[in-house]
């Protein structure tokens, strides 16, 4: 865009963008607590809907926790760029001399820290509530930690694609959910395997592979999608 040499290095630009968004996200403790509370409340709905039989709940715990994590990411990451689009920040991002993919990645990273990572760390508590055997708890955290990287990036892509569309909210889930299916499957399977004492490592490895692949590919796609969204 502009032909001068950026006066800040790429890393500093990434860091600045990251800090800005981390700050905006964590402006109040409530903003951090809210996704966790959402997770908590939705998890409590299941015993209410499915009946309180502990054995049954415990056998379903990995599935429930992962599905809820996916939904939470859908609700949160899906709006990643909404306010940036509305208030014009996206235009400014686009005109900055740094690659859009990097700046977008910084935003996604800040977002991941404030939601995905936190959720992964707190998930064992919910696991215990649903009676998930203790062998599964560590793997639950690890799988969510890796998986939420993918979920957040995919959510960000969905957000970037739909941000300029009025009433894009539900269209978003249509775009995102199919792409999230492998993450869900690998994640739940890893936890199931850990519970039954099987080979969970290879499932986590698959999840790690997905996360790396997403990190490599998706920021570019997100950048391209944002460019289209601003230009409509």
């Amino acid at each position, binding site marked *: *865009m*502009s*032909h*001068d040499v*950026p*006066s*800040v290095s790429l890393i*500093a*630009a990434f860091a*600045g*963008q990251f*800090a*800005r968004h981390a*700050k*905006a996200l964590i*402006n109040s403790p409530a903003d951090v607590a809210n996704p966790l509370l959402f997770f908590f409340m939705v998890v409590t709905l299941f015993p209410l809907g499915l009946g309180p039989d502990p054995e049954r709940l415990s056998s379903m715990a990995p599935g429930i926790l992962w599905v809820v994590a996916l939904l939470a990411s859908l609700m949160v990451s899906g709006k990643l760029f909404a*306010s940036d689009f*509305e*208030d*014009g*920040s996206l*235009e*400014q*991002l*686009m*005109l*900055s*001399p*740094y690659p859009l993919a990097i*700046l977008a990645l910084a935003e996604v990273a800040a977002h991941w820290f404030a939601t995905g990572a936190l959720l992964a760390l707190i998930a064992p508590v919910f696991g215990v509530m649903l009676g998930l055997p203790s062998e599964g708890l560590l793997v639950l955290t690890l799988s969510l930690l890796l998986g939420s990287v993918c979920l957040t990036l995919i959510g960000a892509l969905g957000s970037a694609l739909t941000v300029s569309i009025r009433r894009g909210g539900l269209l978003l889930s249509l775009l995102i959910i199919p792409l999230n299916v492998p993450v869900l499957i690998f994640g739940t399977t890893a936890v199931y395997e850990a519970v039954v004492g099987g080979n969970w490592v290879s499932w986590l490895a698959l999840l790690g592979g997905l996360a790396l692949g997403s990190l490599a590919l998706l920021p570019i796609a997100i950048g391209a999608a944002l460019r*289209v969204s*601003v*230009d*409509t």
Partner: protein
Amino acid sequence: MPLLTAHDVGIERGDRRLLTGVSLSINSGELWQLVGANGVGKTSLLRALSGLARLGVSGEVQRHGSLLYLGHASALKLSLTASENLRYHPACDVEACAEQIAAALAEVSLSGLEDRPVGTLSAGQKRRVALARLMLSPASLWLLDEPFTALDAAGCEWLERRMREHIAANGAAVFTSHQPSRFGALQRDLDLKHHVA
């Protein structure tokens, strides 16, 4: 070398041609006002010049040097304070340290309001926060879409002075406004009614 040249630019929006044959070359020290009735295409042209709009833009636009674009949307996060907004603004290339930002906010008469969430400011105060970027950006070409909106008389005067300084310091600016011309002989008008398709 001009800071921006546009050659035979045409603009189309939603299957309708708005403008054709806009050619212009903006040199440092020049101040251009885009003039035209509501809906003629001033905002669209400004976005095409900035490079934000590409779909539906024909012709050639070349930019040499960095630019600052301030559109209708002012890129402020309502839950951040004024200084936080300026601190992390991606268009703000300087490693803006606190002093510079405080000085910029003082310039736009917002001292004392630096640490209030921007969402609680009045319309004119918000615009002033956005305009504080003019103090912080090193860009030589400014593209400003209706910058005088919502400002009171003192604010308009400040902005006028700031734009004159920028031009005097070899910068250049393109702006739109529906208010009567402020810069006398200094400014050049591009009347878009001659380019309506």
